[in-house]
Each structure stands twice: as C-alpha cells, then as structure tokens.
C-alpha cells in the first residue's frame, strides 16, 4: 500500500540530514518548499511544527528554495546571527541566532506574499466551519492571531493565521494551515485557553516583541486540500475589558480595508478590483470587539449556526 511520507515518519537524524544537504521538500499546500539548514533549532522546530505535513521527493518541483544559515565569519560565533536566503540570496538583515525558526516562518511568508499572484493575497487570518470561511483581516496588534488561535481551539478549522489565499478565478480560499504566530501576552492567554496546544519556547526581543509559534491542529493539516467558500469578513479588535460585540459593517468600508490589507491588489489591477468585489458581495461583513476568548468563541459559534 502506498503511503504518503510525512515529516513525522523521519527520524530526527534523517530529518537533520535532509535539511542539512538541502534535500528536504515539505508539501505546505498549495506550495512545495525546499528547505536547507544546518541549524539544530530549525531541525527540531520543523520536526515538531510540521510533523503532519507530507514530504516530497528531492527531484520534484519546489516553489521556493529557502535556507536559514548561520551568519558568516565572525557572526557565526560572536553574538551569533542567522540569515534567510531565498534561492541563495540573503533576503533580509540578519537576526540574532535564537530567532532562527521565527525567521524561517517570516521569510516563507515573504516568499509567498511576493510571488503567489495566482491568488489574491490578504493579510488576514481565515478559519472555517461547516464549509464556510471567516476572514479576519487586521493590521498587526489587533489581536487577530490570538482570536484565530482561540477559535481554532474551539472547533474551527485553521485555514491560515497570516496570509489568506483567495483563488483569483474561483474565489475559493486555499488553506495553508501553517503554525500560528503568537505575540507577547497572547502566548500565555492561549496556553491558558488551550493547555495541550503545542508551542515553541517563546523567543524574546524580536521586532514583534516576544513570539512563539503554535502547531496547527492535525485535523486542519489533514484537511489541507479542502478549500472553502468565504462567507464572513470580520474585523477583530481586542480591547481589555470590552464586552463582546459583533456589529454589521458597511460593505463599502470593508472593500477599502480589505484592499488595503492586500499584498497584491495593485498588481492585479482591474481583475483585483473584481475579485474583491465578488468577495464582498458574497460575505456578511462585521466589526468585532472582544476581551474574553470564550465569549468570542461563543459569538462565532452563533454566527456559524445562524447562517
């Protein structure tokens, strides 16, 4: 019987070996990513976070060739740094070595956001229930990742926490189900909310503050090939002490905000305008204010049932 090989099927040393010689191809649907790294922390993080993801053969096509490598010469040992390479070219300023794994995730986000124009790309979390997707666009700091992690721990399927991929032709959302980025206070909040969530150790002093990544639920990864139709667009705002309020929001304003949160709206020109129009037409649009995750989960449950 032919079985799809998953990352979990590799021993740590096999994983380290493939990673080290650049022959590790992970199927991170809808992409295939070839990853190279000699850094142990990367090997461990990938082994944990991507254990449910399939592995492709080294001679297959990969959409992105990425590497996280130690800094060169002096910066390999003294105040060690790491670099992110896209097909051999360093793409960003180096970061401290303890940020190696978050750097891989951010770098991969950049690769996808810069090149994947078969999709309309929105900076938004997106989750699914009953075949319908709720898009949560928000600038950083609005609490969307916390909300996303919370809802995913209460029955919603994770489609993506950062990059929403909308097919330009069909309008359906393609899941990516990668680890969820949590920042600062939300790390402890989610630990309390979902004690058996698997997370990396927090990494302090990054550009985004203290960050940790939460493994996507196995179920979400298992169903990664199932697309979903968008049904709701919800703009979340976390405000300490606020009561949970879901209020309808103007479609015109939703259009502007969604376009603003898109990475490639301008590249698509007219077809981008039409794609966003179709999206807004098919979705119920809301603003959402919350301070308590359980309450928020209940509100979203009601939303899902009501449709």
């Amino acid at each position, binding site marked *: 019987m032919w079985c799809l090989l998953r990352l979990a099927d590799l021993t740590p040393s096999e994983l380290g070996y493939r990673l080290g010689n650049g022959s590790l191809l992970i199927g991170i649907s809808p992409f*295939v990513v070839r990853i190279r790294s000699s850094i142990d922390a990367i090997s461990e993080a990938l082994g944990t976070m991507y254990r449910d993801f399939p592995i492709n053969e080294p*001679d*297959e*096509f*990969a*959409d992105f*060739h990425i590497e996280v490598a130690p800094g060169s010469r002096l910066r390999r040992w003294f105040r060690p740094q790491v670099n992110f390479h896209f*097909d*051999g*070219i360093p793409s*960003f*300023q180096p970061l401290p070595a303890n940020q190696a794994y978050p750097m891989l995730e951010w770098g991969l986000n950049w690769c996808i956001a810069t*090149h*994947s*124009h*078969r999709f309309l790309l929105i900076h938004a979390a997106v989750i699914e229930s009953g075949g319908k997707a709720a898009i949560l666009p928000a600038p950083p700091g609005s609490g969307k990742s916390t909300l996303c992690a919370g809802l995913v721990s209460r029955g919603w399927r994770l489609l993506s926490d950062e990059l929403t991929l909308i097919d330009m032709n069909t309008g359906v959302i393609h899941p990516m189900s990668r680890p969820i980025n949590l920042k600062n206070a939300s790390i402890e909040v989610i630990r309390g909310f979902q004690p058996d969530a698997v997370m990396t150790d927090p990494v302090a002093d990054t550009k985004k503050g203290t960050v940790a990544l939460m493994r996507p639920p196995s179920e979400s990864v298992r169903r990664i090939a199932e697309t979903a139709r968008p049904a709701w667009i919800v703009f979340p705002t976390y405000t300490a002490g606020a009561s949970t309020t879901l209020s309808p929001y103007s479609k015109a304003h939703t259009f502007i905000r969604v376009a603003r949160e898109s990475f490639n709206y*301008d*590249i*698509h*020109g007219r077809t981008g305008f039409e794609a966003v129009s179709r999206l807004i037409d098919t979705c119920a649009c809301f603003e959402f204010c919350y301070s308590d995750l359980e309450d928020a989960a209940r509100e979203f449950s009601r939303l899902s049932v009501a449709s």
Partner: protein
Amino acid sequence: MKAPELLVSALTRPESVAALLPSQWDLLIRQARRANVLSTLANVIESQALTDGVPTAPRHHLVAATAVARQQRQAVRWEVRCIQEALAATGVPVVLLKGAAYVMADLPTARGRMFSDVDIMVPRESISRIESALAMHGWTGGHHSNYDQRYYRRWMHEIPPMQHIRRGTVIDVHHAILPETARIKVNTKALWQAPDAVPGYDNLYVLQPTDMVLHSAAHLFHEGELHNGFRDLVDLDSLLRQFGSDDAFLGRLGPRAQELGLERPLYYALRYVQRILGTPVPHRILESIPAPGRPSLRAMDFCYLRALLPEHSSCTDRWSGLARSALYVRSHWIRMPFFLLLYHLTRKAVTPDQADRKEQ
C-alpha cells in the same frame, strides 16, 4: 543539457520546454527569476501557445510573473504621461531610453519585461530647467552627499536620480549616453539629429532603431555590475531580431556606430549576443567592424562569456567571480581617467557610506 543552456534554450526555442522534467522546471524558473527574465520567458512560451502544456506548479509562477510585468508596463505608460505633463511647458525635447522607450515604441522587447526607473535624455544646456520642472511636479533629489552630487553632475552623464514624492517612482535624467569622463567620446550631437517622435506626445522621442541598439550595447559594455547583464543581452537579441529583418537597418548599423564612436561596444554586443543567445547576425556586419586585438579579445571572452550569464549558482564556474570583478574594475577604468578613478575609489573606501541602504 548544461545548466546555463536550460534558460537559453527555453527562451530561444520555447518548444523545447515540453520535454522538461519537474527538476528542470524547478531550475529553469529559478534561473529566469534571478536573471529578471521570468516574465519574458512566460511571454515567449505564451506567444507560442504553449502555456497550457506547462505543468501546473511551474505554470503558476509564469502566470504570476506575467501579472507583475503587465502591471509594470501599465505603470510605465502612466509614469511617462506624468513626466510629459511635468516637462511640457519647458518645450525641451525629451528622449526616452531603455525600458520606457521599448514600451512607448510598442516593441516586442517590452512584452513581458520588468521595469524599474525611467531613463530620459535631454540636451545638456536644458538640464537645470528640466530638474526644476521635475522638482515643481513632485520629484525630489534624494539624500545624496555633496560628493555624490558632484560625481553625478560633473563627471558622469546624469544628475542624481530623482524620486517622486507620492508615487515613489524614480527618474534618471541623462544628457549623454556615456559619462563625459569616459574614454569613448560619443558623438551626442549626432544622436540628437534623428530621434523618432512618439506618436500622440509632444516633445517626446525614442532613439531610432540603430541608435537604440547602439545605446543598449554601449550601456551593457560599460556597465560594472552585471546583475541584469543577461536581461540586457536578451533585450539586444530582441531588438536585433525585430529590426534585423530590415536590410536598410543592417546596412546602417556599422556606419552609424562609426559616426557615434561606438564601434567597439557594437562589436562586443554582436559577438556575445550571437555566442550566448544564438542571435542571427550576418557575417558581413561583424566583419565590417574593427575587432580588438587577439589578447584583448581572449580576455573579454573569458570575462563576458561568464559575466553575461544569469548570476545564479547553476550558471557559474570557479572563474565567474574573477570575471565579474575584472569587469567591475574595467567599467570604472573606462568611465574615468586614472587619477580621477584613484581619487574616487579612495574617497569611497575612506568615507562612511552615506548612500541609501536597502530597506527591509
């Protein structure tokens, strides 16, 4: 197939991509992206109606690159319109160069091409007026040190690039096609004698076909950093194929090169476009241009046959680094007299770098 030939084959014989394995597509996409010709490749494949036959995963990348190129081309047209509006009142003739010229002349060279800055050439005596007009319409001079300002204005052939405050687009204003200090003295006056007007625009021109090719050649063979060397060679190939069907063009190319003082760059352009891309160049043309001495030619072959390939790890050998460094030094050598070069390089080495850093 050797790795560098993969991209050349795909561009010059697109039907050959039908036989590619997934691992070859993987390499081809990466080479094309690095060489800045991914959208050109996509266009070539599409023009032969072969896109549907490309496997799904690489096809997505071709389609994505096409979308970006299309948007950039539209952006160039808009930018040219904005520039023309800004400069109309001056009455100064403006010649569009390179990418913007290919777009406005509606050449096949423009299809699928990526663009960045807009380059224009104006008469030397009008530079200040042009600079003022641009400044009044929202272009700013950018953060250049006093030394950089002098470098550009006095010794090179352009004012420092100006960036538009709202659109963020960059315009390079030249008054010649090579620096004043360059060892080759270009007959700029002759260039101005016969540019082609851009239909529908006042005072806007592109170089006539022979001059477009010669400018492209001059630029490529004076350039020190050849990140876009392969792309520029592809441009040259496209221009030569486009214009080369006209015998009058072929007949005029050599004599015009002589008139402008650009025979040597033309020689190299024809030699390398033929060797690397297989561009059909009639023997008689190449033979009519004085060749450099054999030792010189051997040195140039050593360097350019490496440096004009895509700057990708799959297209290098152990001499590629040396070749590129040598050409970097050469480009400075031919751009300014020795003592000026010494002063310039010393100054650059000693002074802290004030230039713009690449934003993350």
